[in-house]
């Protein structure tokens, strides 16, 4: 079919470019969002419309100097703050160790939460223990908050004989039912809509479990994002829907994930209150999540949260980000680093010091090392022992049907 005569005002469709590519010097605008900017509406009565400014603005509690203020200040005790700091450090140190193990072949693959530690840690701390957590691969940190045994986490990652998912999934695809932590699945987005069903079941049963789920900026382009928002808007189950906008989806920049300026505003037309929050601000994240939990628990339905952060590390162990972005881009991120910021705040309020921090890091390092040493005694991916081959055939169905049984016998292992 030949085109009609005449021609349009532009050459072709536009293809957005990342602001900075290797060789460029990043210079993000400084944020002019202050902790006092935005009010904290009543979670039990708030309408979606009332959050328009919260979605277009940015909720912060800590300013650039680590001073907390404003209506959103959750006024956490220093014990709580210290616990948050500890978990974030634990996660970072854990990640670093696992990354090293990956390079030695003890794991096939790894993904860090680097730069985004506050997301899982702060948000999970704002919930009750029994709330359902429906993570992506970037929120394993939830498990630390709920005190999962670190050895068992490593057993999974190194796919050894003690892996609770029996060597069936890639590393970082944790499952932990006792911790109300649902099995991570590789296809991005699917968990976001499933979580709505989990929350509907909680509502049906009338229990007090709230569900939280996350999706990446990139993955929010999947249909599952739309299903989740829309089904949540219709059925109003107790759910917290978070978009982790960490600026990158592997090599593609956030501006390719959507033509819009922000993700938070998207939920408002669906009549779901929505907030954009500084994702490297432990206090702001905690506070907004707590708000959403209160709302859910009051039977008011969903809250949508855009968590604005930066993926400081590579996408995964298979990825070399210096091929597609300046290697120092993270240093220019206006939100800084979540650990540094909470640490600074604790120092500001006289509850912490550089020495204590160093000690903490050493303690955590020993903890991780000990866990690691114990885990490898049960085997690792490179050297075994692995789960027996028979685990391929079990738990495909509740009971093994004849054809799978036959195949198991054929394998003869």
């Amino acid at each position, binding site marked *: 079919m030949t085109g009609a005569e005449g021609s349009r005002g532009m050459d072709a469709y536009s293809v957005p470019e990342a602001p900075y590519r290797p060789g460029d010097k990043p210079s993000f605008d400084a944020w002019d969002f202050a902790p006092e900017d935005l009010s904290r509406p009543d979670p039990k009565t708030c309408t979606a419309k009332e959050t328009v400014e919260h979605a277009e603005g940015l909720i912060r509690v800590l300013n650039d100097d680590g001073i907390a203020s404003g209506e959103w200040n959750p006024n956490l005790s220093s014990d709580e703050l210290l616990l948050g700091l500890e978990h974030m450090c634990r996660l970072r140190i854990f990640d670093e160790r696992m990354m090293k193990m990956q390079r030695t072949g003890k794991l096939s693959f790894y993904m860090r939460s680097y730069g985004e530690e506050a997301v899982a840690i702060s948000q999970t701390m704002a919930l009750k223990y029994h709330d359902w957590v429906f993570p992506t691969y970037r929120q394993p940190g939830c498990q630390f908050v709920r005190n999962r045994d670190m050895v068992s986490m490593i057993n999974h990652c190194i796919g050894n004989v003690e892996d609770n998912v029996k060597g069936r999934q890639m590393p970082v695809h944790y499952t932990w039912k006792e911790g109300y932590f649902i099995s991570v699945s590789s296809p991005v987005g699917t968990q976001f809509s499933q979580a709505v069903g989990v929350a509907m079941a909680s509502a049906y049963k009338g229990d007090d479990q709230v569900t939280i789920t996350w999706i990446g900026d990139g993955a929010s382009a999947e249909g599952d994002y739309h299903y989740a928002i829309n089904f949540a808007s219709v059925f109003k189950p107790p759910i917290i829907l978070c978009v982790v906008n960490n600026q990158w989806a592997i090599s593609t920049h956030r501006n390719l994930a959507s033509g819009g300026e922000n993700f938070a505003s998207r939920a408002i037309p669906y009549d779901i209150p929505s907030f954009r929050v500084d994702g490297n601000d432990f206090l702001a994240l905690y506070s907004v999540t707590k708000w959403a939990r209160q709302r859910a628990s009051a039977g008011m339905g969903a809250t949508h949260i855009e968590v604005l952060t930066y993926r400081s590390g590579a996408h995964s162990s298979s990825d070399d980000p210096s091929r597609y972005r300046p290697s120092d881009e993270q240093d220019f991120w206006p939100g800084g680093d979540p650990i540094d910021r909470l640490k600074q705040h604790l120092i500001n309020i006289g509850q912490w010091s550089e020495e204590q921090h160093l000690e903490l890091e050493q303690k955590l390092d020993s903890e991780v090392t000990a866990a690691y040493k114990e885990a490898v005694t049960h085997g690792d991916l490179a050297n075994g022992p692995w789960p027996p081959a028979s685990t391929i055939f079990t738990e495909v169905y*509740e009971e093994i049907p*004849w054809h799978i049984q036959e195949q198991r016998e054929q394998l003869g292992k």
Partner: protein
Amino acid sequence: MTEMNMIQSLNSALANMLEKDENVVIFGEDVGYFGGVFRVTDGLQEKYGKQRVFDAPLAEGGIAAIAFGMGLNGLRPVMEIQFADYIFPAYDQIVNEMAKLRHRSGGEFSTPVTIRTPAGGGIKGGHHHSQSPESQFTHTPGIKVVYCSNPYNAKGLLISAIESNDPVVFFEPKRCYRGPFYGDPHNVPTWKGHEYSDVPDEHYSIPLGEANLTMEGSDCTVISWGAMVHVAEEGIKESGVSCDLIDLQTLVPWDRDLVVNSVKKTGRCVIVHEAPKTSGFGAEMSASVQERCFYHLESPIERVTGWDTPFPHSTEWDYLPSPTRISEAIKRTMED
């Protein structure tokens, strides 16, 4: 016992399960207030309330996703896909998610979703209201696949599907909702008086994995499922050959013993389904029968199927296997 058509027996199964297990919830497009475009859920919302039987937004992928989540969190969801042709937007949630949850979570999680869906041709539905996509699901470990064919097995199998702790895709041959279909568009009987329209009002079940030997004979084994079972019956009569007719009922896992013993007895086999031939479930049946009965086979296993084309509208009777095509295939197996 009550005389029921397939719509009524499915409705009765759902009502029994709503009654028996408060974790059963039913949803899908138009299934709530209206009772479903085929009326299978008629009256259930009124009786059991909006929380247990409800309409969903028009998004099969979303419907499957919430079913997944509900099932994982203690409920026993029964979701409807309005036409099997529209199961594809939910395909990812079914094959990548539901099917793998138990395995990937080391058995910690599972989701006992039942997916009911009217399938197959014969209602002038053209490309997108006639497909019979069972084969795609039989290739996915972790889900069971059921295809009912009459009011009696529809109810008993649906109850088993809902009670199963594994995800089940449950195909209902829409052409047979109101009567058996013998391949002749001008002869459209109702279920009235049919032996399989005597259906108990109360709960009963037919185990998943058991086929039904619908006719018994000695010379050829005809294997079919769904609406084609009735067409196969006609085809057998037309052929004059003494045949076993096996209504497979469950495709995964299928009834090995009944099938293998029958073919070993007859030495001949014809498989009939309405989906396209290439990689239809008939291919699996043929390959499996050949593997297990090779030395008993007296002639090639035949497949009588829909063509390897999209499903047409005006000419659908030339698309669907006809009694004559089946009868000729049976007779061909007898030639040698």
